[in-house]
Structure formats: C-alpha cells, structure tokens
C-alpha cells in the first residue's frame, strides 16, 4: 500500500519536473482542459443559479393554488381563447358555494395603472380589485397596515394596499399609511403595504396596488372584464383532487358536454415548473454536450502529449527499469503525470470560472436581478473530479505503453 503511495509520489515528482522542463508545451496542453473546465463549470453554475432563483420564487403563488382565468397561461390557441366566455363574479360565487376541497377562494380583476404621489410617479403598476377571499387564496402578506375590512370591501371604499416596490418608489420607504395616492387619476387612501416578494415574480408582485373589487369597477369601469378566481386547495397533499373538482364544477357551471373542451383556463404554478424544468433540461443537455466536447478535445490533447513524452523518455524508462522499476511503477508514474497535469489545469479553470462568475454577477447582472451564477462547493469538487478522471482516462494508454517497454531496447534508444 505504501508502495503505491511512493510510486505516486515519485510520479508527482517526475510530473513536476517534466512540467517545469517544458512550460510552453505544458501550458498549451493544459489550455484545452482549462477551457473545457471553465465552460462546463460556468454553465453548470449558471443553470444552478437559474434553477435556484426559479424554485425559490414560485412559492409566491403557492404550489397549491389554481387560477381560473379566461386564458390558459401556457400556450394554446390565443384566437380560440379570445372567444371564450368571460369569468364572472357569479362563477366565483357558485364555486364558493359548491367547492368542497378548497380552503379559500378569491376573486380579482386587473387594470394597468399610472400611480402618483405628490411629485413621484410610477408607471405600469398592476392594479387589482380584490374580494375578501383573495388574501387567503393568494397568501398575501401585509408588512405594514392591514388588509381590507369587510365594510370597506362591501361599500367600495377608495382604499388601497400598495406593493413593496411601489411603496419604495412613491414614498421612499417613509410611512404611507393614511396618505392619498392617485391611480389613473382616481384617489385612493393607503391602508397597507404588502411584504416584499422579490424573485422572478418580484416585478409583478411588488409593483402593484390592491383595492376592493367594487372600487376598481367604480374607478375604471366594469363591462367586459374577465375576472381571475384563485382557489387554494384544502390540503396540499391532495391538491390534485382540488384541481379535479374545480374543473368539474366549472364544466357544470358552463354546461359543457363530455366531449367539449374546457372554455376556461385552469392555471397553476406547476405549469411554470414543468415548462421551466423542460427548458432547463434542454439547456443542460445542449450546453453540457458542447462544453463536454471541449473537454474531450482537451483530453485528446493530453493523451497526445503523453505519447510524445513517453517516446522522448524511452531511454529514461529503460534506465528506470534497469534500476529495478516494475511495470506498475512506470505506469503509476506516467499516470500521475497526466493526472497532475489535468488537476492543475482543472484548478486553473475553476479559479478562472469563479472569478468570471463573480465579475458577471456584480457587473453584468444588475444588483436587483435575481438571476445569478451560483458556485457551490459541490461544483468545485465535481470540476476537480472531472479533471482527474480525464487525466486518468487520457493517460492510461500512454502510461501502459511506457510500462511495457523492453528495457534492453529502451536503453539503446537514442
């Protein structure tokens, strides 16, 4: 056992002196591996970051919430969907009566708003008129102030709850409670600020103004609005049952025959997940294939250099054998050389990739962008392991050939 260790140590010593003897050649050889490792690790880190960000933030919606909407979120024929009947408050009312597996049902209607407070103005704010069930169904968290009181909802009071970003931009984080803002010219009193959501949906969730549903109708009109009904499952584990019941109830309401397709959309976060996962696995396969190719090229380069090195050192191998080196020792020595070359190259690659990711994260991606390149310890170790594996795989054949050399002929080699 200690013999194997000694052989490896001697191999490493040989490797270091060989690398130092020919720095240009060593550098060029390592270049392929370095580039390969840089691309593989950067790509993996990027995908990890993308994944993190996505999965962290979709919980904004809640994995157990289904949305009845006129449109289906992911794909489908827009033209057909345009002609669907709109979702009404009555639909919501009926669902509230009939659903047995829902914990909460909330209704909302949308309007794009320009919001002003004194001299500050924010455009493209999502206005949402909501009902009592909205808070629970959509898991709205209030950071300051409170949600709407039943009275305010019933009598369409001109009150609102603003999102985190809207609060920041209009009030610069000063106390907004009781102040009045104008949304598309309509005056609303602020009674609450929602907790920051951030993440991928931060742009939408933190940049909105909530008000009672009837208030929205009063302010901006009602006709032709299609509402969104949010249905939260009673039990996360049995959310599929909730979805099934929801679909059933809606089909009954719409009086659809068994062969008719849904004329409404049932949407949930899962769709995002699935689409996202599909997207990332395609990205992963393609990306890693391409970057893997450069590693292959690097490995071939290593193998080539090892062959050349063995040939050049035929005499030396003969000497070592004459002195008493066994085949396995010669093998280990050359294998260590290839492995070391690759480990050094891999380390350099990882350092470069890490620095690049730091730079990209700070300079290229903006401070509040949620995508970032995520370097984990696991990734670093994997990168090193890959380098080592390539070193061994590329070096094994040349090393084996070296070990098989006939000492008598090797000694004669000029």
């Amino acid at each position: 056992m200690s013999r194997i260790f000694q052989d490896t140590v001697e191999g490493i010593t040989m490797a270091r002196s060989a690398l130092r003897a020919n720095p240009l050649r060593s550098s060029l050889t390592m270049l392929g591996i370095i580039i390969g490792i840089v691309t593989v690790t950067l790509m993996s880190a990027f995908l990890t970051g993308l994944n993190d960000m996505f999965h962290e933030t979709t919980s904004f919606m809640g994995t157990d919430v289904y949305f009845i909407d006129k449109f289906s979120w992911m794909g489908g024929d827009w033209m057909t969907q345009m002609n669907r009947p709109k979702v009404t408050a009555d639909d919501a009312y009926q669902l509230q009566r009939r659903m047995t597996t829902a914990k909460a049902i909330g209704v909302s209607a949308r309007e794009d708003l320009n919001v002003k407070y004194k001299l500050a103005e924010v455009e493209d704010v999502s206005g949402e008129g909501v009902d009592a069930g909205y808070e629970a169904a959509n898991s709205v968290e209030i950071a300051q102030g409170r949600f709407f009181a039943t009275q305010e909802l019933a009598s369409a009071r001109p009150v609102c709850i603003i999102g985190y970003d809207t609060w920041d931009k209009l009030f610069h984080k000063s106390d907004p409670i009781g102040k009045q803002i104008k949304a598309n010219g309509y005056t609303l009193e602020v009674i609450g600020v929602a907790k920051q959501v951030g993440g991928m949906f931060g742009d939408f969730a933190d940049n909105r103004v909530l008000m009672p549903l009837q208030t929205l109708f009063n302010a901006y009109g009602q006709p032709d609005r299609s509402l969104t009904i949010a249905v939260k499952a009673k039990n996360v584990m049995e959310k599929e049952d909730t979805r099934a019941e929801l679909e059933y109830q809606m089909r009954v309401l719409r009086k659809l025959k068994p062969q008719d397709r849904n004329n409404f959309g049932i949407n949930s976060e899962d769709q995002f997940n699935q689409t996202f996962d599909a997207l990332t696995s395609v990205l992963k396969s393609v990306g890693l294939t391409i970057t893997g190719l450069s590693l292959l090229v690097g490995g071939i380069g290593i193998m080539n250099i090892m062959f050349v090195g063995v040939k050049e050192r035929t005499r030396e191998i003969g000497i070592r054998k004459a002195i008493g080196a066994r085949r396995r020792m010669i093998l280990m020595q050359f294998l260590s050389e290839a492995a070391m070359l690759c480990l050094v190259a891999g380390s350099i690659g990882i350092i470069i990739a890490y620095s690049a990711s730091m730079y990209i994260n700070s300079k290229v991606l903006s401070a509040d962008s949620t995508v970032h390149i995520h370097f984990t310890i696991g990734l670093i170790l994997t990168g090193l392991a890959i380098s080592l594996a390539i070193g061994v795989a590329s070096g094994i054949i040349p090393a084996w050939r070296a070990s098989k050399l006939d000492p008598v002929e090797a000694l004669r080699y000029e």
Partner: protein
Amino acid sequence: MATNNVNAEAGHTPENSVIFMEQVQKIYKMGEEYIYALRGLTVGVKKNEYVAIMGPSGSGKSTLMNLIGCLDSPTTGNYFFNGTNVAGLDDDDLAEIRNREIGFVFQTFNLLPRSDSLHNVELPLIYAGVGKDERRERALQALEQVGLADRAGHKPNELSGGQRQRVAVARAIVTRPSIILADEPTGNLDSKTGEDIMRLFRELRDQGNTLIVVTHEEDIARHAERVVRIKDGLVEHDDLIPASERILD
C-alpha cells in the same frame, strides 16, 4: 572454432557462484530467420571475483551482459543467481533482482538528466521501498564513497564526465548488490578519467564487491583478475591474468 571451455578455475558450481550460467542459449527471431546470439554458453563468477568479459562485436557479449543483468531471459538453459534459477522468472521478479542484487554502470552513464545526484542515487532505494530518511542517508554515504558528497545537489549537466560516472557508480552500489555490472565504463571518458574510474573499481573490489566488466579494450580488461573471452556465442577462453600482466595502481 570456439569451444565451450570450462572455467579457468576448477569448481564453479551453481552453489558456490554468485552467478552461474549453464548451457544458455539466446535465440532471436528476425523475420523468417533465427539468430543464435548465445549457443549454449556456460560460465560462473564467484563472490569477490573481478572478471572482464571481452569479445568482438557480434560475439554475443552484449547479450550475455543483458542476461547476467536480468534485463532479459535465456531462451533455453539455466541461470543461477545466488543459487536460485532465475531463468523462468517473470518481469516483476526480474525487476526485483535488478533492483536489489545488481548494480549497473553504463558506458553512457544513464543518469536521469532532470534530477540531481542525490535523487539519482536514491532511485534504486525508492524502487526498493526504503523510507525517506534512510534512503537519503544511504545515498549520501554512497556519494561519499565515490568522493562526491559535495555534489549531491548538482544535476548531471553540471558535472564532468568522470563525475557523472562516479555518481552512476554510487547509484550502482547504494543497494549493496551482489554484483556490479559495468558495460564499457570508460568508453566515454578520456584515459586519465578512465584510470580514476578503474581505481574506484579496485577500491570497490577491495571492499568485497563482485565486479563484472564488459569491455573490448585490453587495457581496461587487464585491471581485472580474470578474462572471459566470448566468440560466436560461446566462451572461447577463460583465463586468470598473471599478476605480472595485470594493471594495478
């Protein structure tokens, strides 16, 4: 016609000799032809003998040296090393014998060019699995024996030819081998330096080592006590050199 003259001194047997070759043949196949490098040669060397092996090119002397040095195996016949027949041993076992029992000295020195003297001399001990401290000490001792302890950190290209050969000798003796096998040890040296090396050999001989020197030069051969002349793959003559004809310092 060359005869397989039996050894000059009666009584070389596998048991009392360090090395004993018995009816050894070495046959190479070159394409369709068979080349008989050794044709059933018999020779023995006892402990502390100082033997020169001479012969023209094509005589088989290089082949004989390779066999003695366990760099190669006989095609037929027996080779007894310290009483054990090594003719049938595998590569790893032969490597072990080369490592522990044989000290090579080559015409072209054959030092590792990128390692310093100390590392070169340590190498056999590394392969023998000797621990770091012990092998360093032994390597330094060997270098001292050849008078080059102060050159331990020098690389071969920083040494003269004679110094390189001496480092090679230090490497050859560091494992305290059964035989020291030298192939034209002075071939790449000028005559004065060559003399220095031969003097070193005499010292080694006096310290109890067994020396076998393969050479084609009479002057070098006459440093030894006994000359074995090879021709056409067989021993032609095997004589002790009379004291009057020997070169003693």
